[in-house]
């Protein structure tokens, strides 16, 4: 008996050291699994619509699939289908899909809300856009479109030309009832937004206040819904989709978003990307991440400090440098449209030395600037008074809501797609995933600030690689057919680590050059769901701080 006896890691059912054993999962599900499909990213099991909860519960508790990454709904000629994309927080390469078909006449399926809290909003969106109804759902209302909308826009028989006539009376004062309730109750109803200095866009928080304490808060989203999924379904894979990802998370995270589409489409159509292009992608994506995190820190400081203060402008000043570098590289400041399937649009700007020098200058100055930020923000006592132990999100709740990115990592959930499900050039480079265990607003800000340092490390290594790259091997684009037509019924769900978390794309091909279904899994959408958990029982300023620390971009929430 020795204490050093090597212990074999305890494996969940269906987990092997190499990955997922789908046969074991199938036997675990037993009679729940009435069929099996093969998607590009993982196998999927078909489950009867009234057995969804039982099947998902088995997969979560016995097989360890604790992350319901996305819920995709779509309509076929003969049926509706909801797909639950499940993963593990420990290892997101272990994936499984749960496909729930429902009939055309009675598209009712059991809600997964009991098992994964995140399913709440995802199913509401499925109901809103596709028209599937979910039994047992606590609050099945439209989420992106107005309550009065006629029809479900992503269903097959939806009439685009149909006028959406809504009588003005219906919108005259949708909140009159709430006002009336004020007189009798001890609580006060308060609309924060859609136009409010701290909602970072057009977000509407229906808040119920008890004095200054938040008794309840409900997010009302959809003000910035631009039918991005439908737009992408009407574009060809090769060129027409790539400009749109820039418009999801438009806070200079464009290349990160583009990469989500590029990765999904490249895996779907089996396109190689030259290594040189991967390095450029990695470098430019991390530049976007720095710019995005700088803005997140700046606006968070704005929410806490209360006015356009020094720290906001300092962060904007430093972000500007990054923005200029990206402009040199891509020709654009915000809507980069830089990635192409199989590579990038163009090589580094000439003269290359100047670009490298400017990048290195930024990286050299960055530690000093971050020191300044730490002086002004994180080490400020009033700032700590405001942020430490407010907006607490414990790791289990974060996982249940499908929180990812800095929000999850601020709650100590060690989850980063770049490391756990590597793509691009990340696994060749030396960097760390940042986590903080505080679970509060302070931790989330700290994670972002430390991630900037890690991104800088990545950029530095990429610059080193690019500088040394032999001139005749600078291949930025592989051969890609002019018209991409993936085989019919190819389905894929792929994600990358966007600025705000796991940004996933689900695509289904139907043999044409346009996707039959294009679904965006937005990290902000899932992260925003945690807001009530964080802010109930706290003060209004804490609610604002928590909202700021989530770093949502409404363009990505509403898509």
């Amino acid at each position, binding site marked *: 008996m020795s204490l050093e006896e090597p212990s074999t890691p305890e494996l969940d059912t269906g987990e092997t050291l190499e990955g997922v054993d789908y046969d074991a999962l199938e036997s675990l599900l037993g009679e729940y699994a009435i069929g099996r499909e093969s998607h590009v990213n993982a196998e999927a099991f078909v489950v009867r619509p009234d057995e969804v909860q039982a099947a998902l519960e088995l997969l979560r508790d016995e097989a360890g699939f604790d992350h319901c990454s996305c819920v995709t709904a779509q309509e076929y000629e003969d049926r509706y289908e909801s797909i639950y994309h499940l993963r593990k927080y420990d290892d997101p390469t272990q994936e499984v899909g749960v496909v729930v078909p429902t009939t055309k006449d009675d598209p009712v399926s059991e809600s997964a809300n009991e098992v994964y809290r995140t399913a709440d909003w995802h199913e509401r969106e499925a109901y809103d856009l596709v028209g599937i109804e979910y039994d047992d759902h606590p609050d099945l209302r439209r989420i992106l479109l107005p309550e009065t909308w006629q029809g479900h826009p992503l269903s097959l028989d939806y009439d685009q030309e149909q006028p959406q006539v809504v009588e003005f009376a219906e919108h005259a004062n949708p909140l009159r009832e709430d006002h009336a309730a004020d007189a009798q109750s001890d609580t006060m109803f308060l609309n924060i937004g859609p136009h409010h200095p701290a909602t970072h866009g057009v977000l509407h928080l229906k808040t119920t206040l008890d004095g*200054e304490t938040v008794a309840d808060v409900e997010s009302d989203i959809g003000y910035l819904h631009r039918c991005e999924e439908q737009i992408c379904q009407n574009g060809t894979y090769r060129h027409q989709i790539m400009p749109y990802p820039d418009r999801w998370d438009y806070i200079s995270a464009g290349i990160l978003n583009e990469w989500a589409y590029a990765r999904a489409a490249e895996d779907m159509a089996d396109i190689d990307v030259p290594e040189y292009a991967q390095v450029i992608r990695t470098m430019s994506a991390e530049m976007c991440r720095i710019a995005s995190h700088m803005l997140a820190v700046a606006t968070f400081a*704005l929410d806490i400090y*209360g006015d356009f203060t020094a720290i906001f402008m300092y962060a904007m000043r430093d972000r500007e440098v990054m923005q200029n570098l990206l402009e040199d590289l891509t020709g654009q400041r915000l809507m980069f449209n830089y990635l192409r399937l199989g590579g990038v649009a163009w090589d580094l700007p000439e003269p290359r030395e100047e670009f490298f020098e400017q990048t290195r200058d930024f990286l050299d100055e960055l530690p000093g600037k971050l020191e300044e930020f730490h002086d002004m923000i994180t080490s400020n006592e*009033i700032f700590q*008074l*405001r942020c430490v132990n407010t907006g607490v999100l414990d790791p289990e709740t974060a996982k249940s809501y499908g929180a990812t990115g800095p929000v999850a990592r601020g709650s100590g959930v060690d989850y980063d797609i770049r490391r756990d499900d590597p793509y691009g050039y990340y696994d060749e480079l030396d960097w760390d995933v940042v986590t903080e265990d505080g679970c509060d607003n302070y931790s989330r800000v700290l994670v972002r600030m430390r991630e900037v340092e890690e991104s800088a490390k990545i950029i530095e290594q990429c610059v080193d690689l690019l500088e040394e790259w032999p001139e005749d091997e600078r291949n930025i684009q592989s051969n890609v057919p002019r018209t991409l037509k993936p085989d019919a019924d190819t389905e894929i769900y792929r994600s990358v680590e966007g600025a705000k978390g796991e940004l996933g794309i689900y695509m289904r091909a139907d043999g044409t050059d346009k996707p039959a279904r294009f679904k965006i899994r937005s990290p902000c959408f899932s992260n925003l769901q945690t807001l009530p958990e964080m802010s109930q029982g706290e*003060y209004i300023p804490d609610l604002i701080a928590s909202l700021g620390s989530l770093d949502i971009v409404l363009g990505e929430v509403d898509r």
Partner: protein
Amino acid sequence: MTFTETISSLLPISGPIADFIGGAVASLLIISFLMSLVAVSGIWGKRKITAAFTDRIAVNRHGPFGLLIIVADAVRLLSKELIVPDGVDRPAWDLGPLVMTSSALLGFAVIPMGDLFGLNLQIADPQAGLAYVFATASIASVGLVMAGYSSNNKYSMLGGLRAVAQNLAYEIPLVVTGVSVVLFAGSLQLSEIVAAQGETLVSLGGVAIPSWYAFVNPFAFILFMIANLAEVGRNPFDVPEAPTEIVAGWQTEYSSVYFVLCYLSEFIHIFLGGAIIATIFLGGPAGPFLPGFVWMVIKILGVYLFTQWCRSAIPRVRIDQLIEIGWKGLLELSFANLVLTAVIVGLL
């Protein structure tokens, strides 16, 4: 001789009517001066100061150094439509900004603004000057409540409630700290307090350090500065307005001229705070070479600069923390300061 007496003595008549005319003219002159001070430092100076703190340039296209922005802003603000929201409580809503502005202006009636060309620019010098200043400054709270309550807006309501809670919590430390100065000076009369600070405290290498109460009792000075920040509602204590939380607090629904009045009252309050600090801690208009009046304005603007600095660099505390700091921290400290001062003054 006060400013009022100087003016009325120039009149061909004497008696109560002459006193009245003298007071009116004197007030008019002082108010005109304050207005132009607000115009320069509130509209132009604030922009420049904040820009300097936040690494920007600010206005520089309107005339020399962008100074003509004052004209542009005045025209803009005054020509905007006055929007009266549905359901406002009309007389209260109209009076709120007026009460706030006039309460701050009233305070200046007793401030010794110093000498200029041999004229003493203090309008009146009552025996209970300091008590009068604190009393008038506090009337602004009534205006805040009126504005917050009558606007028929929940953000205004919250802002009004916050303002009251804040003023209650910080006015007491402010006054108690002020009283500790009175103990030193032995008088509530502001001219007496200024005169008491004229003596030399110590002489360092030939430079005489005056016995300003900021030097005599720096602890009280710091307490007063902090309480004053809360009194004028600037970071870290700007919770009654708290943009990003409650939009603009009690002034959410005010536009056009009424907004100008709100804005004006805020700045005059800051100046009044600065004037009180200058009078009871910084020797009033005392200073070398320059006329006393100029020194007084410099000191007031110094305090103004301090508030702007805090606004640019310090986070805002939460409302419950603000109340806690006020009642559990500043109040205790200010009473401790008062008792200690009393003991020291008694022993000396």
